[in-house]
Each structure stands twice: as structure tokens, then as C-alpha cells.
């Protein structure tokens, strides 16, 4: 793959925190526009560190990260922020306005939006994250899941072409998860590139087209989601468990399926569609 085809490219990147042992020793991969990629791996595998290298908060010790052709180590973070938006693991660490709507408006205002255009952007975003009814509330008075959506909204409102999400599904109930997944689907449909660090393999199975797995400081796997989950060597090396519907399909000798509904359809087809009730 030529790096010119990629919106994001990571070439031979190594990184260690000062005084610490290497977190990443040799990481390379390219991301094309509009891809939805899950970054997986064990605790401490360097997933969150990788995100911080992608958005320029950290610079590689060796190698190079380029975002839309700009090397992160040579580009100011506020310029990179027009290309890449990040929602961190702990939303309370990125929220600082006294009202939800002000938090959402902050990014687009920095991009130069004003007046009715800004108001429309904020309203649209509040609607997408399902928090229009608490627009005037203090973000820190909201529950943890709502707070995560505020953080997501504050980034979505800037309409970054690349979206980095660190464990976005964490702690969400089924309804909130549905909303999050709808947003990811809409973003992908609009051509946004999405990279999500994620421990929830059901979520990965449903939403990611490609998996990049980190282990021992390197890329342990980089392939389409189904190919990843159906290769026991890759899942073992990456320390992930396979989604239950896939485990079910494999144990019952059915074609591999990643989601409950795909498994159900495959099970019924296998059983000849015969009704028991």
C-alpha cells in the first residue's frame, strides 16, 4: 500500500514513555478514508498510547505518523485537530465548560463558526447524542454515560474527517450502545474514518470492518474482522476472546457468523427452517 492512498499512515513507529520500557517497538499500518477499524489488544498493549501518537499528543521516538500527508511530529496539535478528533477514555478529563451546549459549541467556535451556523451545528450535535433535553445542565451533573456522549458530541461537532475513540462502548447500556453505534454507522456512511480502541469483541464484531491488534509492542494482526476472529493464532496472540455467536457457530459446525442475528439465520437454515412451534 502506498502511503499516498492513506488518510493516516503509521510507519515503523516506536515509542517509550520517559524512563519506561518500550510500549511500541515497531508499528506500521495504513488507513484509507472511510474505514472503520478496531484497535484491540491486552491491557497495557499500547492501544491508548497509539491513539495519542495518531493525534499528535505524543511523537514517535522512531518512525513517522502522517495524517492527511502531514507528519504529526512537525505539525502543531491545533492544526492536526482539524483533521483528527479524539474522544478519550475518561470524558471528565476533556470536559471543561459549565454547560453541555457550551462544551459542544467550543470546538466549532474555534474552527470559526458563529451565529446561526454555530447554533445549528450545536443543535444537530445535541440531537445526535440524545442530550438536547440537558443542553443547559452542567456536564458534571450528568451520569457517566451521558458525560461520555458529551465528550463524543464535543468532537463530532467539529466534523473531523478522522475520529479516534478510546473504549467508546465502555459502561454503556443497550440503549446507549445503540445510539453510539448509529453514530458510528452515520459517520462511516458520510466518509469519516473511524478508529476505535475496544475491549468489547461483540461491539468489534458488529461494527468494525478491520481489526488491528497490538501485542508485545508490534502489530500482531491486521486483517478483516471475520478473518481475524476465525484465526485462533491471531486471537490468542492478541489476547481477545471471540464473540459468542462465532463460538456457537464453530462449536455447532456452522459457517462462521459474527452477530446473534447472523447466527440465528444460519442456525435456522441449517435446521432446514423447520418450525417447532
Amino acid at each position, binding site marked *: 500500500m502506498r502511503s499516498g492512498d492513506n488518510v493516516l499512515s503509521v510507519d515503523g513507529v516506536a515509542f517509550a514513555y520517559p524512563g519506561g520500557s518500550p510500549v511500541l517497538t515497531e508499528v506500521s499500518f495504513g488507513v484509507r478514508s472511510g474505514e472503520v477499524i478496531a484497535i484491540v489488544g491486552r491491557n497495557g498493549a499500547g492501544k491508548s498510547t497509539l491513539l495519542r501518537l495518531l493525534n499528535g499528543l505524543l511523537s514517535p521516538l522512531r518512525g513517522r505518523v502522517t495524517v492527511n500527508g502531514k507528519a504529526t511530529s512537525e505539525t502543531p496539535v491545533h492544526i492536526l485537530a482539524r483533521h483528527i478528533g479524539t474522544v478519550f477514555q475518561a470524558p471528565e478529563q476533556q470536559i471543561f465548560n459549565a454547560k453541555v451546549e457550551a462544551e459542544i459549541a467550543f470546538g466549532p467556535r474555534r474552527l470559526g463558526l458563529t451565529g446561526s451556523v454555530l447554533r445549528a451545528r450545536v443543535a444537530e450535535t445535541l440531537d445526535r447524542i440524545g442530550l438536547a433535553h440537558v443542553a443547559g445542565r452542567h456536564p458534571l*451533573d450528568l451520569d457517566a454515560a451521558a458525560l461520555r456522549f458529551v465528550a463524543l458530541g464535543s468532537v463530532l461537532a467539529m466534523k473531523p474527517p478522522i475520529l479516534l475513540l478510546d473504549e467508546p462502548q465502555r459502561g454503556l447500556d443497550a440503549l446507549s450502545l445503540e445510539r453510539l453505534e448509529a453514530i458510528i454507522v452515520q459517520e462511516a456512511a458520510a466518509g469519516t474514518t473511524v478508529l476505535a480502541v475496544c475491549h468489547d469483541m461483540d461491539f468489534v464484531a458488529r461494527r468494525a470492518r478491520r481489526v488491528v491488534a497490538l501485542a508485545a509492542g508490534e502489530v500482531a494482526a491486521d486483517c478483516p474482522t471475520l478473518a481475524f476472529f476465525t484465526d485462533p493464532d491471531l486471537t490468542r496472540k492478541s489476547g481477545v476472546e471471540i464473540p*459468542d455467536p462465532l463460538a*456457537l457457530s464453530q462449536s*455447532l459446525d456452522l459457517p462462521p457468523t459474527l452477530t*446473534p442475528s447472523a447466527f440465528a439465520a444460519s442456525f435456522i437454515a441449517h435446521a432446514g427452517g423447520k418450525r417447532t412451534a
Partner: protein
Amino acid sequence: MALIEVEDLSFRYPGTEQLVLDRISVAFAEGERVAVLAANGGGKTTFARWLAGLLPEGILRAERGHVRMHGRSWPDWTAAERAAAVQYVGQVPSQQLSGAAFTVAEEIAFGPSNLALPIPEVRARVAESLAICNLEQLAKRDPFTLSGGEQQRLSIAAALAMRPRILVLDEPTSNLDPASRDAFIEQLAALPAALTVVVCEVALRPCLALAQRFLFLHEGHIIADGAPADVLSHPACVAIFGMTGVARAAADVRERGCWPLGLELPLTLEAGLRSFRTAERALGR
């Protein structure tokens, strides 16, 4: 006999209309392992903090009701007594760090040291907590350089070092990878049988592995309290909480009329394998 009792507890945050907890009554016995499920914003964390005696201070007071441990309401306990009786580990591990420790081992020693325990006793507790939470390799690391999952294990290790009677965990496994989560669940299951563990979660898998009793908190009320399968099949619980992937797959098969009558929906992978094999046989395959 109940170790800790929540009696007719109602609570709302200042300046809001909605009661987060609305006349809640529930009791936990010594050694019980309980999962508390609720929707996002459903009062899980508020309940957990009340249970752990962390809210009835300052301006946040119950509208009515009490939480009593050994028959004594939380405001009647000193902070040190309470810290030795109940420990709460919240959702954001980095916020729980004392900030006064340069190493993981020192962080774990912080609580017991503040109880003015003899140094050998503090050391023994640190060693035990490091082992339980599989942190021996990280004992000399700076807590602030740990990953999110490692910090979560550290928070729990520090709580265990207080040797509480009750451990209240707010989404304890949400930051853990599967191997760490399974190891952690195993370690939690191996804790002294007398320790009462209350886990507040939105993820079903750790709850199923940890707890024999589930509570479902909905719109301020406990609307289901009992065996996991009974609570998880409550319609409100299914609507808000979703199903495990296995249950969802079985429900899909049932909706399309291909699930044997009388066969229960399985919750776990193991149960699912058995049930789908049964269904396969019933379908003549």
C-alpha cells in the same frame, strides 16, 4: 441476619426534580455476592455510593431512610471505622489514586497506614493485595504510568488492603481485557467467603460469573431481585439492558418459530451450546 440494610431510602441530587432512589429497601447478608444492574443514569453509582456510606456527608442527605451496617446508620460511624468496614471502588481508577504514593506498593499501603496499623501488618496486607490482583510485577511502578486496566486492578487492591466486610465495586471490569477480567473474577470468587461483594455493572458477563443474586434498579425502584435468569428475563431489564449475545441469538431463533417449546433462553455460552444442541435435535438434525 443482614450485614447491611438499606431502609426506605430516598434521594435526589440538589436542584433536580427526579428521585434517583425512591424508597429503596434491601438487605445484604455476610458473604453474599450481588450484582446491581441499572440503565445508564439509572442510579447505579448513586446506590453504590450510598451503600458505601459515601454520600451522607455535607449537603447530600437522604430525603428519607437510612443505610445501616450492624444496625448502625452511616452518619454514626467515624470515617476510619467506615473505611475499615466498607470499601468502594469507582468507575474512574485514576481518580481513586491517593496522589501520595510513588509506587503501586505504596499506594496499596496508603489506606492501612492511615489506620495506624503496625508496619509488618501493613506489609502483609500489601503483599496479599498485590497477589490477589496480580500486581506483583508492577509493585515498583509509578501508579500514574499504569494503563487504565492496571489502575483499575490497583484501586481494587488498595480497597482489599483495608480488609473490608463489604466491597462495593462500580463497573470493576470495564477497563479489563478478557484475560485480566477472567483472572480477576476468579480471584474475586476466591476472596474470603465472609466478604460481601456488591458489583454495579452494565456488562452482563462479569455479573453472571460473579453473582448469585441480581438486583435491577429502574426509575428509582428495585423492580427485580432474585436469581440471575429471573431478573434478566424481566421485560424492562431486557429492554434497557439488552441480552447476552447467546440469549439474543436464541431469541431470534424463537421469534422465527424454530425454538423448541419449553426450552429456556440460555444466558451464557456454555448454556447456549447445550440449548442449541437440544434445539438441533428437536429439529431433527
